């Protein structure tokens, strides 16, 4: 298995998977506990407009995606607060408008977009060094922000209204969380592509929440799971010459189903004890 890491593109691919897992383990945890996976879907699809714009202007599409992602996140927050539209309506509109803009930009760009598919479905084998740097920087930013605002985000996710009553600026915090989601989406685009982002964001935390009831530990387990899924998916896609993004998602999805359908078996209890042993969490029996 190790010999495949001799290729430089494989090294890059693996590092990209690891970097993406860090961002999505942390932010995915918030997405799952706050139940805003639809929002993250909306933001990731809106980012496609930015990829199109990147092509059109001849700049790195990842930068376009980042700008569009953050703009749609802030826009979503502002529109749903200022107008009387329901949030999910606004998400649906942004979702399809971003995609439409992307298609128009790409249509207007002379020539054709050779690696368009790789942005839609991810092509981890084609990650340039430059993008790895960008992913690492985004990871760092996300980590610092999550660390600084840990207690505020926890309280915000748990009980928004109480937070507001305590004088915490809830609305800016919400916008910040949406921006973090859009940055995470950008790191994930290279690995699994816009269309498949949601799965990698949601699956690791939804498995890890069964093993812990501590948000920070949930993040750590999610990161580990994400790393395992991307690594295994990458290896399988290499072995069977299949598209890497899709294989990674399938690996994650199958694991999700496995964990969902084997509730409270001896295996799960043992695993729980094992993880509890590492995270120092004493398990109270399920009453």
């Amino acid at each position, binding site marked *: 298995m190790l010999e495949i890491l001799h290729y430089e593109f494989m090294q890059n691919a693996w590092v990209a998977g690891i970097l993406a897992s860090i961002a999505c383990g942390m932010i995915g945890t918030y997405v799952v*506990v706050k139940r805003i996976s639809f929002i993250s879907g909306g933001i990731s699809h809106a980012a496609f407009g930015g990829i199109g714009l990147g092509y059109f202007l001849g700049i790195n599409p990842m930068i376009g995606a980042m700008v569009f992602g953050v703009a749609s996140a802030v826009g979503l927050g502002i529109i749903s607060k200022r107008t009387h539209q329901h949030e999910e309506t606004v998400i649906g509109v942004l979702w399809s408008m971003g995609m439409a803009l992307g298609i128009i930009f790409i249509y207007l760009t002379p020539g054709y977009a050779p690696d368009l598919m790789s942005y839609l479905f991810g092509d981890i084998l084609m990650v340039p060094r430059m993008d790895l740097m960008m992913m690492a920087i985004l990871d760092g930013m996300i980590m610092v922000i999550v660390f*600084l*605002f840990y*207690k505020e985000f926890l309280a915000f996710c748990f009980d928004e*209204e109480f937070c507001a*009553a305590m004088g915490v600026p809830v609305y800016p915090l919400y916008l910040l969380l949406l921006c973090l989601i859009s940055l995470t989406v950008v790191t994930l685009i290279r690995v699994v592509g816009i269309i498949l982002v949601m799965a990698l964001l949601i699956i690791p935390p939804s498995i890890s929440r069964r093993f812990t*009831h*501590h948000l920070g530990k*949930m993040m750590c387990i999610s990161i580990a799971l994400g790393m395992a899924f991307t690594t295994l998916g990458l290896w399988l896609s290499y072995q069977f010459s299949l598209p890497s993004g899709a294989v990674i998602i399938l690996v994650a999805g199958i694991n999700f189903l496995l964990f969902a359908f084997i509730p409270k078996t001896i295996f799960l209890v043992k695993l729980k004890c094992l993880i509890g042993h590492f995270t120092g969490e004493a398990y*109270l029996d399920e009453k």
Partner: protein
Amino acid sequence: MNNELVKLNQISISFDKICVLKDVNLTIKQGDFVGIIGPNGGGKTTLLKVILGLLKPTTGKRLVAGNCILGYVPQYSQFERDFPIRVWDVVLMGRLGRRMIFKRYDNTDRKMAEDALEAVDMVPFKNYQVSKLSGGQRQRVMIARALAAQPKMLLLDEPTANVDCQHGYDLYELLKKLNDERVTIVMVSHDMSAISTYVKQIACVNKTLFYHDSKEITTEMLEATYGCSFELLGHGIPHRVLKKHKENEWDVRNSTL
């Protein structure tokens, strides 16, 4: 404002041009135990949120004494049951307003949280996940969270909505104990018998507010508030009826209104 903690002055509030509260005046003093009653949709919760500052009134003024910290115990149904969080972390949340952004909770915060848990008798459950608690226990944790901020005033929105009878009684006893320790309490409730037993002042809300600086509920008040005629427990002399109940009679009179 000597011992006045919160003062609402001619407050009106409307949502989408529908008036919910109109010309409400209310003064809450140190040591009060105010029960807010009224029909569904009458604006009880809105009034509570105006006092808390969560809702901005359309017109009118809300004054809060400078040193007055408000503790809030929201209606239970608002948060998700299986959220991955321990009792201890929930209670620490009460310290949020006292801790700057970027700063972690320190030993003072932990001490306050510990004291708050002790006040509601929930220390043994410190490491439990919130979803493993019963309705009454969860409500105690929410009260502990509010107490952790060391509030002068505690505001509760239907504290016994998801709690069975005996635990509801325990909860009111706890509030009474806190009130005796000089915590001002403002409580929205449907539970008339509890209101008459524990509460010192009564506010009837149905768009407008009728405030009684005593715990006696009069038929006039109820009729004006609920908009239909009332016969209070059928005892004959309306003005006396909800008065002078002993605390241990509580569960016998649970089915009124």
